[in-house]
């Protein structure tokens, strides 16, 4: 079981992710944009994993991650992207991204990645 903060600007997709992750007995918190992600990450007890949509209005997942990393938060992160490659093809090597998940989501693959990050 892991504590996961999930961010996506679509309520439907948040509902889908929450349902599937809770069925796998994870504890899920949600956010609908990058600012909410920053607000919800408590530096003293950050979540085990961040699952961030790369493209969200106002503040994207990438922008939020950049701020969190600058604040010294090293929580593992998976970027969910509508494109088959993450973050518009850019690598963001400086942001220590642990993996990319493309939409539509292959849940078996997602669960495997989460297991890998929480066990390692």
């Amino acid at each position, binding site marked *: 079981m892991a504590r996961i903060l999930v961010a996506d600007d*679509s309520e*439907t*997709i948040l509902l*889908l992710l929450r*349902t*599937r992750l809770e*069925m796998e007995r994870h504890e899920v918190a949600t956010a609908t944009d990058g600012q909410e992600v920053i607000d919800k990450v408590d530096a003293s007890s950050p979540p085990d994993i961040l699952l961030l949509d790369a*493209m969200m209005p106002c503040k994207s997942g990438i922008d939020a991650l950049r701020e969190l990393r600058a604040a010294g938060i090293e929580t593992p992160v998976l970027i969910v992207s*509508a*494109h*088959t*490659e993450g973050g518009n*093809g850019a690598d963001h090597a400086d942001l220590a991204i642990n993996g990319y998940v493309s*939409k*539509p*989501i292959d*849940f078996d693959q997602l669960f495997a990645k989460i297991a890998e990050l929480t066990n390692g």
Partner: protein
Amino acid sequence: MIGVARFLQQRQDYENATARSYQREIVARNRLAQGTHPTAARAAVISQQHQRQALRDEISSETRDTALLVGAGLIAGLTGAALLFTGLISSMRRPLEDLVDASGRLAGGDLDARVKIGGLSETATLGSAFNEMAEELQRRAGERDQLDRMKDEFVLTASHELRSPLTSVQGFAELLLLERENLSPKQAETVEVILDNTRHLVRLLNDLLDLARSDAGRLTIRPEQTGATGLIEDAVRTMRAQLDARGQQLSLEIEPDLPQIEADRDRIRQVLVNLLTNANEYCPQGANIGVKAHRAGAEVEIDVIDDGPGIPEQQLEHIFERFSRGDAGETQRVGGTGLGLAISKSLIELHGGTIGAESTPGGGSTFRIRLPMVIPERVEAI
């Protein structure tokens, strides 16, 4: 009747007489020409002597002065012309050289190429015409680039916007099937239809997106060291259900100890799945499909083989081109965009590899991929 006979006889006599006189005339003319006609020959000799004498007199008395004048004029004229030409050439050469140079640069894609206007009015006109043309070319190229960017941007945005609802549809349909025990068989079947069609839509969307990326030079790969065997088995596993659904046999022959290769796992799997999907869809029920892989020097060779209907020769040479499809009847049944193989080719080439096909109508098809174990330093952007 008698009248007619006489008329004919008279006419015959007349014609004979005419022919005889004509023959005489020809003989006389020939003699004259050869100078053998006695009277004519004499006359000709006398006439020539007279003419020569007359000509000599004329030249000596009048023309000598004129010739001198003409000669002097000619020399002066030539000198002037030479001077004028030297001036002309030097004032034309520079602008013309500039034009040649600028044309070369323009043809080479340097749309900033312009010439300095100067020299004679003709070369100046030529120069400004060239500059106007270059200006127009640059303006149009700018418009085209902007349209291209807008198109790429549109495809990327549309793909993103379509992907979110598709993610929901596919995700919730899968969620329903996870609770299959609560569904009636009819309901479960309905959800499966929704899922199948959603996956098909996603495939179309991915093809269009790859095509747009390829056009924009943004089709990229993320290579990593990966076991070739696992990669092939992975693709085959993805396809197993679809092959079973058509009762097709799949045989897998992978050489033991196939090496690691430098490859983008997702992209190579995409290519293999594309080849297997084609085999699955174009081959009849119960067909035999095989995947063979072995090492060939510094490359790994992967064959996808089927014993299906084969590809006619005239189609075979075009199958890796965009929108190339099987014949109309097949196409209607199979669906797809006709982009799969074109994208597969681009992806394999990004890995520094090759893809080709062999087929005999009625005798099945073989698609062969060759992937280098290490991607060469510089692979041209596709």
